[in-house]
C-alpha cells in the first residue's frame, strides 16, 4: 500500500500558520502607546481620552504600584505572611479594570490588586488573606469583584457560569475572568472556553501573560501565542500590549461591549511581564536572567504614560507632586490598617463553614469551648 503523506508531513497552509512560531509576537500586538510614550494608531482599535482621563489612569497605576510596594514591605517586616506583587502588570490591570462598568462582574486570581482598585475595593481588604486573618472575606457583591481564587483556573468556570446567569437575566452586563499564562494549561480554563462558546456567554477571558508561571516560561504551557487558543473554540482572541494602558483599555472595552451586545466570549491576552518574584516566597534569580527583566524595564507601563503626559503637556509638576503625596498617604493608611488588623477570635474557626448550620460543627464548637474552659479552671 502506498499512501502519499507528504501533504501532512508538510502541514497544510492553515495549520502551518498556527504551528509556526511567529517571528515576533510584537507584530501581532495591539499597541496605542509606544514604550517611548508616542501615540500610535491601530486599524482595529482606537481610543480618545481627555487629559483628565489620562491623568486618572496614570494615578491609578501609580497608586496601585505604591500599594503593592507597601505590601511587599509589610511582608518583609512580618506583617504579612506572603505577598503576590503585580509589579509590571499595572497597565494590564488598570486598563482592563477601568474598561469594566459598575454592573459588570470581575473574577480575579490572587494578583489583581490593580483591578480591585478600579472596582473600588478598599486595598486593605486584599491584605487579610495574605496576613492570615481570613481567606478573603470581602463581600464580592459590594463591588462585583469576586474573592481571590488560588486554585489555578477555577475562577474561569465561575465567571462563565455567572455570565450564563447574566444572559438568562437578560441583563446587558458583562463578566471578566482573569487568569495567567500558566493557568491556560488547566482543564478548567479549557472547559470554561467550551461552556462560554456553547452558551454564547457574555464573558471576557483576560489572560495576563506575564511570561512566567513561577519558574516556568510560557513555552512550557504553549508553543503558539496564547490568544490563538480562542479560535479553536469558536471565538476571537487578540493580543494586546499589556504594558500599554490605552491599548488594554480599548481592547478590553471592545471585548466587554461585544459580550454585552450578545456576541459572546472573547479572549484578550495582555502581553506583559512579572517584574518581581512570583511571590515573596520566590527567588527568581534561580531561573531567569536579569537581562530579561531589564528589557522589560524599558517598556514600563507607568513611565510610558508619564512620558506621554509630559510630552503632550497634559500634566504639570503639581499633578505629579500631589500624586506623590497621595501615594504616601495611601501607603501610610495601608501600613496602619494592616498593623492594627486584629487576629480573628478563636471561635471564628467554627463560623461560616455552613450557612444553615451543621450539628457536628456545633458539637466540635462546644467541645472546644469546654477544652478552653479547662485551662481557665486549671489556672484558677
Amino acid at each position, binding site marked *: 500500500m502506498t499512501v502519499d503523506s507528504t501533504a501532512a508531513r508538510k502541514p497544510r497552509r492553515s495549520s502551518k500558520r498556527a504551528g509556526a512560531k511567529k517571528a515576533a509576537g510584537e507584530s501581532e500586538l495591539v499597541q496605542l502607546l509606544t514604550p517611548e510614550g508616542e501615540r500610535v494608531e491601530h486599524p482595529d482599535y482606537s481610543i480618545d481620552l481627555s487629559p483628565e482621563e489620562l491623568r486618572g489612569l496614570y494615578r491609578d497605576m501609580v497608586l496601585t504600584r505604591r500599594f503593592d510596594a507597601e505590601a511587599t514591605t509589610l511582608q518583609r517586616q512580618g506583617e504579612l505572611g506572603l505577598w503576590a506583587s503585580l509589579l509590571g502588570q499595572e497597565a494590564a490591570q488598570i486598563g482592563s479594570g477601568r474598561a469594566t462598568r459598575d454592573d459588570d462582574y470581575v473574577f480575579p486570581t490572587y494578583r489583581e490588586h490593580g483591578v480591585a482598585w478600579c472596582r473600588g475595593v478598599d486595598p486593605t481588604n486584599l491584605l487579610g488573606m495574605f496576613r492570615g486573618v481570613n481567606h478573603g472575606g470581602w463581600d*464580592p457583591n459590594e463591588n462585583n469583584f469576586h474573592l481571590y481564587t488560588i486554585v489555578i483556573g477555577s475562577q474561569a*468556570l465561575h465567571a*462563565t457560569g455567572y455570565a*450564563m446567569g447574566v444572559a438568562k437575566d437578560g441583563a446587558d452586563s458583562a463578566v471578566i475572568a482573569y487568569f495567567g499564562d500558566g493557568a491556560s494549561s488547566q482543564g478548567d480554563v479549557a472547559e470554561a472556553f*467550551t461552556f462560554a462558546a456553547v452558551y454564547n456567554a457574555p464573558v471576557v477571558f483576560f489572560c495576563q501573560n506575564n511570561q512566567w508561571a513561577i519558574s516556568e516560561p510560557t513555552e512550557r504551557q504553549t508553543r503558539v501565542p496564547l490568544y490563538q487558543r480562542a479560535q479553536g473554540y469558536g471565538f476571537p482572541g487578540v493580543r494586546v500590549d499589556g504594558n500599554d494602558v490605552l491599548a488594554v483599555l480599548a481592547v478590553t472595552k471592545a471585548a466587554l461591549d461585544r459580550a454585552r451586545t450578545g456576541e459572546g466570549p472573547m479572549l484578550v491576552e495582555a502581553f506583559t511581564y512579572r517584574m518581581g518574584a512570583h511571590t515573596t516566597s520566590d527567588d527568581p534569580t534561580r531561573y531567569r536572567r536579569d537581562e530579561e527583566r531589564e528589557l522589560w524595564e524599558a517598556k514600563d507601563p507607568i513611565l510610558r504614560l508619564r512620558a506621554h503626559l509630559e510630552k503632550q503637556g497634559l500634566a504639570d509638576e503639581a499633578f505629579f507632586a500631589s500624586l506623590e503625596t497621595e501615594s504616601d498617604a495611601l501607603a501610610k493608611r495601608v501600613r496602619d490598617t494592616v498593623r492594627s488588623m486584629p487576629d480573628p477570635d478563636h471561635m471564628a474557626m467554627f463560623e*461560616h463553614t455552613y450557612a444553615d448550620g451543621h*450539628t457536628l460543627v456545633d458539637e466540635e464548637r462546644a467541645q472546644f469551648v469546654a477544652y478552653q474552659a479547662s485551662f481557665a479552671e486549671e489556672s484558677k
Partner: protein
Amino acid sequence: MSTEKLTIAKAINASLRTALETDPKVLVMGEDVGKLGGVFRVTDGLQKDFGEDRVIDTPLAESGIVGTAIGLALRGYRPVVEIQFDGFVFPAYDQIVTQLAKMHARALGKIKLPVVIRIPYGGAIGAVEHHSESPESLFAHVAGLKVVSPSNAADAYWMLQQAIQSDDPVIYFEPKRRYHDRSEVDTTAIPGPLHVARTVREGTDLTLAAYGPMVKTCLEAAAAAAEEGKSLEVLDLRSISPIDFDSIQKSVEKTGRLVVVHEAPVFFGSGAEIAARITERCFYHLEAPVLRVGGYHAPYPPSRLEDEYLPGLDRVLDSVDRALAYQG
C-alpha cells in the same frame, strides 16, 4: 393532603418539577438531562415544560458543570446538577472540594452556594465499571458540604425539596438500584428536618444503621432475624454529613449493639466514623464492638461478582450474629 404512590425516580422528578415551578431561580443541569430526560429518565419531561433555559443540557465536562453551577449560584440561581453516574463525579471533585465547599467560608458568610449535586450511586444494576460506586465518604470528609441519601420515595421527594431550599451545597446521593421501588408520597406533608435519622423498625437486641439502598436490605435482615427470635432496630440515617449521632446513640443505649451497613468500602467508610463516635459516646452501653458491613478494599468488581461484593442479607445477618455472640 395529596398522596400518590410513586417510584423513587418519579418522586425525584416530581420534586424537581415542584422546585422549578415554585422558584424561578431553580435550574436543572447536566449531561443528557434535557430531551433524553437523563439516562435514568429522572428529569423526564422537564425540559419540555420548563424550556432549555432552565433545564440545561451541558457539554460533557463535569468540572465545567459544577464550576458554572457555582457561577450561576453566585448570580442568584439555585442550580440542581446531575452527575450521570457515581464514577463520573471525580472530574468535578476539585470544583466541589476546593470551591463549592469552601466559598461560603472564604467570604466569611457573605455569599451563599445553594447548589445541589444529584448523584445516582451504588451497585446491583449489572453495570460496567464506574457505574456502581458509593463515594459518599469522599464528600462527607470535606467540610462545607452536606451529604444525604434517601431510601424511599417520600424521602426522595422531600429531602430533595429541602436540599434545594438549603443555602448550603448538598450532595444528594440517589440509590439507583431502588429507583423503581414504589411507595406513598404525600407532597403536602410537612417533613421533619433533612439531617435527622428515622427509626424504620423498632427492636431491642441490636441496632442496624444504614442509608440509601441498604435500608431495604436491613429491613429484610431484621425481618429474617425476627423469625429467629432476634429483635433488630433499623435506623435510616438519611444524612451522612452531618450524621445524626444522637439518634444512633439513643438506639444503641437501648440495644447495646450496633451494626452499620453500607455499600461503600468499609475501609475509611462511614461505618468507621459511626463506630468511632458511637463507641466514644456509648462506651459503657456497648456489649459488642460496632461492626461494619460494606464493600471490600477493591475496585468495584465486574457485575458478575457484585452480589458477592455487596453486603446482602446474609452478610448483614452474619455480622448481626457476630455482634450478638459477644458477652457484653
